[in-house]
């Protein structure tokens, strides 16, 4: 990317961030109750999205992903993108908050991954008739379920933690 193009891009990002930081269109999403509701809904969707793929197939799976994207977007607006923005766009309180949030988010995401890996290993040991030759067969919907579970968790957990942690913010 050339310098001028990069500068234009940086200016556009800065203008967008400025608008989001100052806007009050989503004030209703920034109440304590709304933030907790959005965070809880997103946590539920992290489970619902892969289950929709695995249990009901592609169409319900895609619909669940679309709902997940909408809720994720609303969640990010409710916390003014603080979990996602570079440090240059945050003041010192927001930076400190974001750093604290990422410590917790890493632990949550690590917990999810460790839980899944342990469950998979346990299932492999318990269900496998002969561990040396047993192969795991995955369907297309199964792969999509695993992919969207990890995708949804990785992308949304920082904003979920922020919404729960920073729920005292004034409107």
């Amino acid at each position, binding site marked *: 990317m050339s310098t001028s193009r990069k500068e234009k891009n940086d200016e556009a990002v800065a203008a967008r961030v400025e608008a989001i*930081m100052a806007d009050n269109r989503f004030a209703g999403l920034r109440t304590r109750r709304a933030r907790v509701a959005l965070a809880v809904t997103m946590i539920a969707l992290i489970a619902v999205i892969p289950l929709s793929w695995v249990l009901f197939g592609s169409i319900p799976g895609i619909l669940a992903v679309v709902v997940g994207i909408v809720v994720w977007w609303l969640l990010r607006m409710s916390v003014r993108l603080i979990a996602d923005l570079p440090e240059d766009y945050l*003041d*010192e*309180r*927001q930076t400190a908050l974001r750093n604290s949030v990422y410590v917790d988010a890493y632990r949550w995401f690590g917990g999810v991954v460790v839980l899944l890996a342990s469950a998979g290993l346990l299932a492999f040991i318990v269900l496998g008739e002969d561990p040396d030759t047993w192969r795991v067969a995955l369907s297309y919907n199964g792969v999509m379920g695993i992919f969207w579970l990890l995708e949804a968790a990785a992308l949304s957990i920082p904003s979920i933690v922020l919404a729960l942690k920073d729920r*005292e913010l004034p409107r």
Partner: protein
Amino acid sequence: MLLYMGRKPKSEEPVYSRIEAVRVDRGITRQELADSVEVHYQTIGYLERGEYSPSLALALRIARQLDTPIGELFALDPFTGAGGNDEHIA
């Protein structure tokens, strides 16, 4: 009694502020103060409610902007007169 490895938890280190009283006295809005010290206006709200402890640099910028000695804006003990927040900074 719990030991904290030689360091007190932050909740036991209260810092009191009089930003709101001084700001209102100067006729400055929260947004104007935020813009002049380059923070988000909600951060000023956090400072005024005693829910956030500023860095030394930010405290000095606020003191300069409000034309008030820093010792009259922030203190480790509650302000005796009116205008200080009752909440300590966590």
